[in-house]
């Protein structure tokens, strides 16, 4: 059974308004985003369904959906939304939230992101061959390597592949940026989750249904992060 969750909806709505200046409540389900989406044919939920799910608080399903991971970030939906909602921005932000919450997500997008950014953090710039090797090792799926093996000969003959990665001069700073930013993001999500759990516990202890006011929870979460 699907249960709508008003608290969850309100919490994430506020969070998205703050982070990407986009309000999911503005969506009136015209479906323009889905009509223009080039990748929707691979999604489990279409972009307008995602918007509806966020409105009613089915956030867990959205955060763990294929759609979130397979969004190509072409921004067509945001450009065409008659309500001026930055849909791609919302999807991007939810993706970062899913990452910071260390959720298990479908497809190999997380593997790709980790391979890419791990390589960048190590070398400062992106040695493509090294990144590709990291990605294919990460997927543990030999089929994917074999599918792309055909790309190697033309790249080699055209002199487009450098096998030995070189470290750029700013690599140390880049790896520090990478580490600090991710630590901050993960700490923020953890603190937020703890604050929400505590607030929910307090609310149920008080025996009140309306005590878990989303605004109060968000405020509590905010203060926890800054402290």
């Amino acid at each position, binding site marked *: 059974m699907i249960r709508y969750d008003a608290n969850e909806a309100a919490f994430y709505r506020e969070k998205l308004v703050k*982070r990407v200046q986009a309000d999911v409540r503005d969506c009136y389900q015209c479906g323009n985003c889905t009509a223009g989406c*080039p*990748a929707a044919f*691979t999604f489990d939920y279409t972009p307008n369904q995602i918007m509806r799910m966020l409105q009613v608080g089915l956030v867990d399903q959205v955060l763990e959906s294929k759609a979130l*991971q*397979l*969004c*190509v*970030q*072409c*921004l*067509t939906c*945001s*450009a065409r939304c008659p309500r001026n909602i930055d849909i*791609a921005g919302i999807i*991007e*932000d939810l*993706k*970062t939230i899913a*990452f*910071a919450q260390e959720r298990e997500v479908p*497809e*190999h*997008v997380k593997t*790709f*992101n980790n391979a*890419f*950014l791990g390589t*960048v953090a190590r070398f*400062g*710039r*992106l040695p*493509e*061959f090294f990144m590709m090797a990291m*990605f294919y090792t990460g997927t543990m799926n030999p089929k*994917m390597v074999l*599918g*792309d093996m055909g*790309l190697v000969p*033309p*790249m080699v003959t*055209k*002199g*487009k*592949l*450098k096998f030995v990665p070189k470290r*750029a*001069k*700013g*690599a140390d*700073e*880049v790896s*520090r*940026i*990478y580490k*600090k*930013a*991710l630590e*901050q*993001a993960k700490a923020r999500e953890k603190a937020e989750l703890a604050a929400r759990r505590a607030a929910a516990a307090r609310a149920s202890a008080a025996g009140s249904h309306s005590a878990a006011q989303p605004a109060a929870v968000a405020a509590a979460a905010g203060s926890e992060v800054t402290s």
Partner: protein
Amino acid sequence: MTVAYYPGCSLEHSSAEFDISTRKLLALLGVEFKEVPDWTCCGSTPAHMVDHLLAQALAARNLRQASEVAEEMVIPCPSCYQREKNAEVEIHANEELRAEVNKILDRPYTGRVTAYSLPEFLLKFVGEEKIASLVKVDLSQLKVVPYYGCLLGRPVELVGDVDPEQPMAMDLLLQAAGLDVKWWNYKTECCGSSIGMPKAEIQRRLSGKVIQQALNAGAEAIVVCCPLCHVNLDLKQAQINKFLGTNYHVPILYLSQVLGLALGLSPEEVKLDKNVVDPRPLIEKAIKEAAALKAEAERKAAEKAAKAAAREAAGPREAEKAPREAVGATREASDRATREAAAAGAPATDTEEQP
């Protein structure tokens, strides 16, 4: 004016031809540029999918490096351009974010660097007139469509004065360089790049559609300005063919390569040999066709001039009475008339032919 030049990782490796041809083109156009000292990766697609602060900080580091050499930064790769522009706009407008970003940078970014994409930069700082005045090679028989992809027209708030559905910057530049620019509806459709490795199916289907639409529009080549679009359409064209059961063989050219060729750079200088689908036969054919057409036009013009001159020599009244005779005047007379017309330095008028 010196501008900072940010090549980015793709241009160092898989899109070396884009880097080399862009540098040559800028030099030819008299643009002074300096590579951003010790630049690093902009974060590309993954960084902003993983963490916002990470993405802004990685991009801000490059803005800081660029501020050491210039106030303006030209970025050929739209993916890098998009990240740098995003950071630029947000950080310049929001001092709080700047402080947050500076906290995780080794040295703070305090400047105000403006990022430009290549088409935008060429239009604003070089201009169509200058490009048109420098054209050396006639590419009027090269039928192309400009493919902008996602990142040169979106998001609207960042890219400025661009119609997200109908960008024109590349059209204008290519027209100025004298190419046969076809109109099509797939200018800003996505090639599927950002998901190309984890989910190849999306990329193959989307890129296949782009190629098909270009052919439908009557183009023989696609002009791109993005290393990611180029990889997907050019390097992966064989994969697309295999996946979709098609038989495409469409050369994919960089904007800088085409403009360079039109302005007289050699195919070696713009590195046409590095494109996987070889564009050289098509370009040779187009140049030959243009030359043949030009010779034909010149021949016709000379013939017309000869006829008109012959008529004039025969006198206006007689020409009216017996035009056939005038046309059939002896070769000698017509040759003499041509010489006379040439000596007079004025092309023969065709007023007589008008009713």
